[in-house]
């Protein structure tokens, strides 16, 4: 499915997409947070992209771990530890392989979600990135065809972002707004969807 080179390429594409969508993500965060989500993520994934050349010959696990450590040390806020932990756990799940297959991907995705839930002490339905990611993983698992599953995962994540508009935030800074958080999409769910869209685009070609 993807060798180390491909994984590095996907991370580069994620950095480009986050940079492009920086203002849109920040605007979402301004509505119910503190208006820095896009700025912080763009800084973090930009730093990841800058370190990919050093990691050119590394295993998939090592590249994902490097991405996780870089995000932890450059993003800050809540999204730094959350996305950082996600990539660290994904890297640990794939390990020293230099080529990941679809089963590796599903295991890595599962570990990333478990990492986010552990670090954020969150579950589905609290208006967080998990509301995009968990339905996406479920959709991916349900489809015997990986490519189809990945398409359905993106759709499920899109629906998840829409769903976050309808619910009350009970985690993170948006929870301070009470009912005022309803009607706005969760910025973390939106950035999770964006990352998943890039992965699907790159893997499906």
């Amino acid at each position, binding site marked *: 499915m993807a060798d180390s080179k491909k994984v590095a390429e996907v991370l580069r594409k994620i950095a480009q997409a986050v940079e492009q969508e920086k203002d849109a993500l920040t605007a979402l965060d301004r509505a119910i947070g*503190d*208006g820095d989500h896009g700025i912080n993520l763009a800084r973090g994934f930009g730093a990841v992209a800058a370190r990919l050349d050093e990691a050119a010959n590394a295993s998939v696990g090592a590249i994902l771990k490097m991405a996780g450590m870089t995000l*932890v040390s*450059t993003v800050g806020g*809540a999204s730094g*530890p959350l996305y950082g932990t996600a990539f660290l756990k994904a890297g640990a799940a794939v390990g020293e392989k230099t080529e990941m297959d679809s089963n590796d991907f599903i295991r890595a995705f599962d570990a990333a979600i478990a990492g986010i839930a552990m670090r954020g002490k969150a579950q589905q339905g609290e208006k967080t990135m998990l509301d995009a990611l968990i339905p996406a993983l479920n959709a991916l698992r349900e489809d015997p065809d990986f490519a189809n599953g990945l398409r359905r995962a993106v759709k499920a994540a899109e629906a998840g972002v829409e769903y976050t508009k309808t619910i009350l935030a009970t985690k993170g*800074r948006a929870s*301070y707004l009470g009912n005022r958080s309803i009607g706005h999409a969760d910025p973390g769910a939106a950035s999770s969807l964006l990352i998943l869209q890039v992965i699907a685009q790159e893997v499906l070609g």
Partner: protein
Amino acid sequence: MKKLINQPENVEREMIEGLVKAYPHMLRKLDCGNVVVRAEKKESKVALISGGGSGHEPAHGGFVGTGMLDAAVAGAVFTSPTPDMIYEGIRAIATEAGVLMVVKNYTGDIMNFEMAAELAAMDGIEVRSVVTNDDVAVEDSLYTTGRRGVAGTIFVHKIAGAAAQAGAPLDQVQRVAQKVIDNVRTMGMAISPCTVPAAGTPGFDLADDEMEIGIGIHGEPGTHREKLAPADQIVTMLTEKILADIDYAGSEVAVLVNGAGGTPLMELFLLNNKLQDLLAERGIQVYKTMVGNYMTSIEMAGFSISLLRLDDELKQLLDAPCNAPAWKN
């Protein structure tokens, strides 16, 4: 956006370097990042570390000094510092007596300080933490991440700092820090927003005749919006909200009228005038009053009121000598 800055991405570093250059005998910046530590060598006492996003100056770097913090870690504006920087701060100040982290209750701060403590524990450093949550604007319920830590946090720096300076063991320092947290409450409001340099646009928009009530310290919107009222009415409204949570009647308190950064002292003293009368009417005895900019939100115009219930132990620690750029006793 109109600000006295150079490149937005350099604001935090240039601010920290400028702070350290203003107090070279007191402060030192670590080479690895925006971490301020005490300039003099380590003492064999419990070490205190705090931190948070930048934009709250003089918090937290201005509270590093004798009898207060040993280190303050500054993240990007309104963004929690990262675990690696907090870890470097812990390593720079750690003693045999242990380290206490003073963390404000925000999801990001909690997670980043927690990861840093995990790293320090691997080095055999004993790290404990207290979490400040003095903001009564936010309901503490199952449906929120709990109350925010705001201006009342500086009382924790002062009182836990005094206990550590006096040689109290980690258990005791943690206990008095928690005692302050249990007895301090804050409520804030704003009449104009602030602009994060890297964002370039204000955190929210307010009409000329509107005010935002229940504001936090990160330029985020508050709990609700109302028509602007005379200052006395606003003081009464904020104080009532605090007293509904803890009735301080019959208690002795420390009072903090904290400016959000863009409010002149003229207005802060005017607000304090009403506040003192109101507290007297309610049978609340004021032991100490502080008026000024202690925990700001860049250039936001607004203020918060904090009340801290005191007993003999807290009074003595509050009065103990300290020497930090933003608090000298």
